[in-house]
């Protein structure tokens, strides 16, 4: 019973984190500002999901594989954010957004 309650609370926190980040991605004015809201989804929410799986299953194969996925996500997030913001900054410095002009 206690385990179920803790799991539900952890999952609710994970969903709230994702929902808040989705709102941030939707309302922020620029890509650089939107990028900040990807980090909670790539770092905070996975840890909460991992804890929920751990509380439900204990130390077993499922928890191990979830841990692996979470570790990869946490390791990948900074590299990906850095590469993205670097591309956006380079574009701003060169007066960019040629793609949008082409698309329009």
């Amino acid at each position, binding site marked *: 019973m206690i385990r*179920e309650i803790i*799991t*539900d609370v952890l*999952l*609710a926190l*994970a*969903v709230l984190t*994702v*929902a808040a*980040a*989705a*709102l941030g*991605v*939707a309302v922020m004015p620029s*890509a650089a500002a*939107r*990028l900040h*809201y*990807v980090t909670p*989804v*790539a770092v905070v*929410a*996975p840890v909460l*999901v991992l804890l*929920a*799986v751990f509380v*439900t*299953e204990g130390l077993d*194969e*499922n928890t191990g*594989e*979830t841990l*692996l*996925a*979470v570790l*990869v*996500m946490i*390791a*990948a*997030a900074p*590299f*990906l954010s850095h*590469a*993205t913001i670097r*591309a*956006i900054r*380079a*574009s701003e410095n060169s007066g*960019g*957004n*040629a*793609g*949008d002009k*082409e*698309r329009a």
Partner: protein
Amino acid sequence: MTSFVIAAIAMLVALVPAGVVIVRGSLADAVVGFEFLTSVAVLVFALLAEGFKRPSLFEFPVLLAVLLLGSGLVFVRALERWL
């Protein structure tokens, strides 16, 4: 329906704003939306695998997490010229 499945459905609903950003925003916004969407997809796969009690399905989130880095970097690099 377990709480894991409910959480997965709620996270799928949270993808809608990112989808709108991808469709309506600039190319840079779309890249950020793609990264957001992929990160949530990893969580959804993990939640569904646990929710349906299918241990074999736990390989999807692991694979997708690895591909998240690769595809994201390739995507950003390839689109850098147009961002």
